């Protein structure tokens, strides 16, 4: 970090990573975005490939799609949103982990409950026969 950045930080108006950047910081940032873009584009292409190919066992394609999607979200988080394991990112990571927990509970909880209800319901055909 530049001396200027440190002084600005002490003045309390600039954060680490947000100070006026030099040429090196910009090229490092650009490289990070480029890596992220190439990886994300590759994973997107892999998702589109997965539904056309016969190389993957049929019922496994959906698993492949979910895996590729999660991988691409990870790429976006690391290279675009700059969520890292660094000490200045602990709060962001904690919030993210909590968010992922809630998302997991909402999605899988709903699917679980609704599947269970579906099993315990009278089949539609029987219901229609009863109404006759």
């Amino acid at each position, binding site marked *: *970090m530049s001396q200027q950045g*440190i002084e600005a*930080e*002490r003045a*309390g*108006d*600039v*954060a*680490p990573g*947000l100070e*006026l*950047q030099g040429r090196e*910081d*910009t090229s490092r*940032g*650009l490289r990070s*975005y480029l890596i*992220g*873009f190439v990886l*994300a*584009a590759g994973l*997107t292409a892999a*998702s*589109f490939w*997965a*539904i056309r190919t016969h190389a993957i066992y*049929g*019922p496994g*394609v*959906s698993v492949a*799609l*979910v895996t*590729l*999607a999660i991988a*691409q*979200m990870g790429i*976006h*988080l690391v290279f*675009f*949103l700059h969520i890292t394991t*660094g*000490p*200045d*990112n*602990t*709060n*962001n990571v904690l*919030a993210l982990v*909590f*968010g992922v927990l*809630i*998302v997991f509970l*909402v*999605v899988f*909880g*709903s*699917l679980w409950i*609704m*599947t269970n209800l*579906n099993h315990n319901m009278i089949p539609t055909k029987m219901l229609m026969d009863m109404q006759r």
Partner: protein
Amino acid sequence: MSIASSFSPVDPHHIGHNNLALGAEGAATGHGEGGPAPKSVIVPYGFWIFLLSDIVMFSAFFASYQVVAGNAIDAAPRFDLSNLAAETGCLLLSSFLCGIASLCANRRRLFGTEIFLLLTGILGAVFLTLEIREFVGLIQQHQGPADGAYYSAFFALVGCHGLHVTVGLLWLGTMMAQIFAKGFRQDMLRRLTCFSLFWHALDIVWVAIFSLVYLMRFTP
């Protein structure tokens, strides 16, 4: 030196305070040795929490979509894969260019920032146009939001994302005008950081939509 700092001189819990100001002690209790975190850390952090709550809201739409899609008897709509690929490419490239714009802003390059923000916006608008065209096509084939449970869930989820992109485009236009008029003030840079977080997060949601909603319909 206080008692606390004798056994934890620098950042004992790795919370990121006081990485630089070695030995400097904050007078305020509860703010760590470096004093309260600067505004340009707190504002994006607050916005990050908003984004996570937004993603939680999207997860509810996802859950309802998955439940309905698993049980609906409606015929699956015929999605156009090339249209989907174009939409995905636009949004990914737009997200990338938004990052480049924030790099330009960090170097205080007005022209570069505005140009890359403009390209971000144009690609976002192309995405939105393609999506609206697809929606209109579906509605004309009587597969609109009122034509069955599956379509209701589909339009609610994808439409909610499209609505976010629309709001993002409005915000983007405002950002461009504000940066042009007011220059790279600290509050402008904070807003730009929040905007790029928002735009990248929308791309993450789109990743989930294109693979779990669209491509899932093409699995054997």
